[in-house]
């Protein structure tokens, strides 16, 4: 009887341990062959992406030494708030001193503060802060509408596909990132100006009324998008909560 129990115990121990070992452990971090002094962003920062989804362009950072020349083989590790995924999360810089990673933002709309780390020869950590913005469904709708209706006048930057009309306007519109001006306006003000045009708030008539072109939910989406991209960030005036 006891022998049976013992066999069973040994067998289950083997099974359990086999189950444990088959789990893939975290990929080992490679050993750095080079050390830099500074970390700079090459491209891929300040992107707009959808919540949970991979950003359109990879994030590329570069490691430089004191003279500003690129360092190959330096170890760079990326980190971010919960829900953010990096592919790869760490790696060695290539021959041009750069490391590229694909970033997927978390499930909540908002600004994401990401960081890249590398260490110097003296084991001192160097950090680079990067910001990306995640659009939720509502902001995504606003972003699409901005591209279609607003950006030609409100975005001063021209692209080959879209020449900006900003410089042609006598009264300059506020770019949506201009938080200093737009954060002072309430949601009701923004709704009024989008629906009824500039004159509704005693502003320029060059801003036409969109209340008969866009639906109520579309205007709400547009406003939530404007709130998200504004710089400095927008904080809704609302209830003040007791802090712990």
């Amino acid at each position, binding site marked *: 009887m006891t022998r049976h129990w013992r066999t069973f115990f040994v067998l289950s121990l083997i099974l359990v341990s086999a189950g444990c070992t088959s789990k893939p452990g975290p990929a080992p971090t490679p050993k750095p062959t080079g050390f830099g002094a500074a970390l700079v962003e090459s491209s891929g920062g300040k992107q707009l992406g959808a919540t*949970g989804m991979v950003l359109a362009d990879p994030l590329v950072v570069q490691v430089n030494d004191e003279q500003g020349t690129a360092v190959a083989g330096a170890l760079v590790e990326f980190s971010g708030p919960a829900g953010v995924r990096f592919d790869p999360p760490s790696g060695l810089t290539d021959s041009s001193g750069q490391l590229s990673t694909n970033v997927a933002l978390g499930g*909540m709309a908002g600004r994401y503060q990401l960081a890249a780390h590398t260490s110097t020869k003296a084991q001192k950590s160097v950090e680079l802060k990067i910001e990306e913005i995640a659009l939720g469904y509502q902001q995504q709708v606003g972003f699409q509408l901005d591209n*279609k209706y607003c950006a030609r006048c409100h975005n001063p930057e021209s692209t*080959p596909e879209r020449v900006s009309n900003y410089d042609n306007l006598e009264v300059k519109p506020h770019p949506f990132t201009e938080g200093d001006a737009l954060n002072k306006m309430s949601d009701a003000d923004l709704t009024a100006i989008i629906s009824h045009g500039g004159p509704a708030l005693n502003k320029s008539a*060059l801003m036409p009324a969109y*209340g*008969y072109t866009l639906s109520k939910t579309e205007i709400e*989406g547009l406003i939530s998008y404007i709130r998200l991209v504004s710089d400095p960030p927008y904080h809704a005036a609302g209830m*003040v909560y*007791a802090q712990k």
Partner: protein
Amino acid sequence: MQSSSQSSSKSMKNTLFLLWQALFGDPVRAFGVVSLLLLVLLAVAPAKNHFSEWRHYQKQYLALIGNRGDAVTLLRHFHEHDGIQQIWLPQLGVVDRCTTCHVGLKEASLADVSIQPFRRHPVIPHTLDQFGCVMCHRGQGPATTVEEAHSSTLAWEQPILPARYVQSSCGQCHRAPLTGTPQLNLGRILLARYGCVHCHTIKLPDGSAIKPTDDPPSLEHIADKTTREWIYAWLKDPQAYAVTATMPNFKLSDTDARDISAFLISNSTPIPGDTAPVAKDQKAPDPTAGASLYGESFCASCHAVQNAAGNVVGGDVGPELTRVGNKVKPEWLRAWLHNPRVYDPGTAMPHYRFTDPQVSLLTAFLGNKTDSDLLANVHLDAATPEQIAHGKFLVTDYGCASCHEVNGIRKPDNFAPELTRIGSKPLTQIIFLPGMTHAIPDYIAAKIRQPRSFGSALKMPQFNLAPPQIDALTTALLSLTDRAHDLPIALTVPAKPVSNYQPAGKAGQLMADLACFSCHAINGRGGDMAPDLTWEGSSVQRRWLQAFLKNPGTLRPALIRRMPRFNLSDSDATELTDYIMAVYQTPAFDRDSMPAGGYPPAQVEQGKQLFYSKYACQACHIVDTKVDKGYVGPTLTQVGSRLNAAWIYHWLKDPQTMRPGTIEPNRNMNDEDARAMAAFLMTQNGPSKQEAKK
């Protein structure tokens, strides 16, 4: 001789007997013990209930809201629905208890809470009570433990859908593109554009099948067009020739690529007229003239070229031309530029009616677009019959004819597995790779990312896709679920029906020859690069249209993609004008209901005031080139000789009805304003030719 086992069994019996005596020795004691046992057993269920996970979360939630300013409201909402919550939608088969732990989903004031399960749900167009949770997020609705609700267990295999693919769920009901689902829309476009559906059949719930949009070239006459060396280099690595190429990499060995190229060349048949002799005596044409003709003809609207910085500049309707000189034979290119329809009757390329010198200029300009490295290491000996036979075997084996026409090889049916319900494929039918998460999204994404990682003998080639494109394709495929196919018809939002509109007669032939539909849409068919022409006859004036077809001018100076000049003959321009003016008329109004001129000056003046002050149209349009600067809409300096007065009036009243999707805002203009503005605009005939010359 007493064995030790006998003595141990004896002592065990003794112990058991003593225990029995202690518990059930006399009836009163037995009654007490049994009652106690019963009581403990009865307490198991309430205890399990009391210590359940969901109660734990509800207690946490109460602690969380307790010290908030709006605690009273939140508490009231909570106590209205105490205990286990359930959303039951029999029609959709939804039994969702998720709201038991996700208590704050509907609380708008919890916007600052980021810990789960207490976040409020972000704003979406549907409410929880309409559709429940699992319709979009998958997972197990009836489960009441975290593990069972979110992960796949032995009994329930459907885990939660990762947030990155959540748009796929919108696609179960919505067949048409939505503003809020760019990733799903992109994925659906890629499914058709990368030719996935050439090999994989995908039937939609409405019974139709997704049709490819990539139009891979026929290989029946390929020897007229290109060399065996180029085919070899292309097969080895399509993206080395053109970074934007959608042709996947089949990872062919050198000998396989050699044999396929041998077969394709030997299998090709000539078409009379698809090559034209290249004059040798001419001195090399001016390269700058070639470049400017390329620019004037707006080739870049459809064709891209990679510049020195590595950026791809230009449209994606036609193939990339960065190294086209390595590919095409000059005599084929001459004939193609003269009339592309000889070689490929269905091509999206317009028949430009170039003159001989123009064709020479462009042939020389494009012929110089080469990369000396591309074919430098390709040296092929003359093909042997064995190589050709092996090449034919490979072409059949890899299913090349699924995409390309090949002489003597029939397009295979169902070459690859059907993907109609791939989003609900049972996990038991899938072989996962070691270390892979056992879930459908991971499987689909891995298959697209690296098909041959599932077995080196697999035929599916390696596609050149960026991570966001892979996620988009996975999203589109995940939307093809059992639920999508079994939904009540009333709940689905159908896609716009596919139009096979074909204009009739000689004008119809002309429009096909000029490939108008590559850029313009008419009656639901065609591209979106240029304006929709469905009501063009109601919109413009006859004389303007005829002149425009002969020599297209600039309506929107800021655009880089513009209508090219096709060098039409007078009779062809008249034929087209007649057809457009007669057929493309809106039934909404009579184009002769308003006169072209003769409006009272007071009304014109009133229109001018409205234009500049009340409606401030100069923000986007130019009427007076000296003052106005608006560059968003078309220039209106000559609108009085271009547009029809009744069209302007109806356009001002409701632009979106006249041309759906236009960005001109609807100003809800009253009748009087619209009439005055139309009167003002009809007086804008621009500077006369003499004035312009001065």
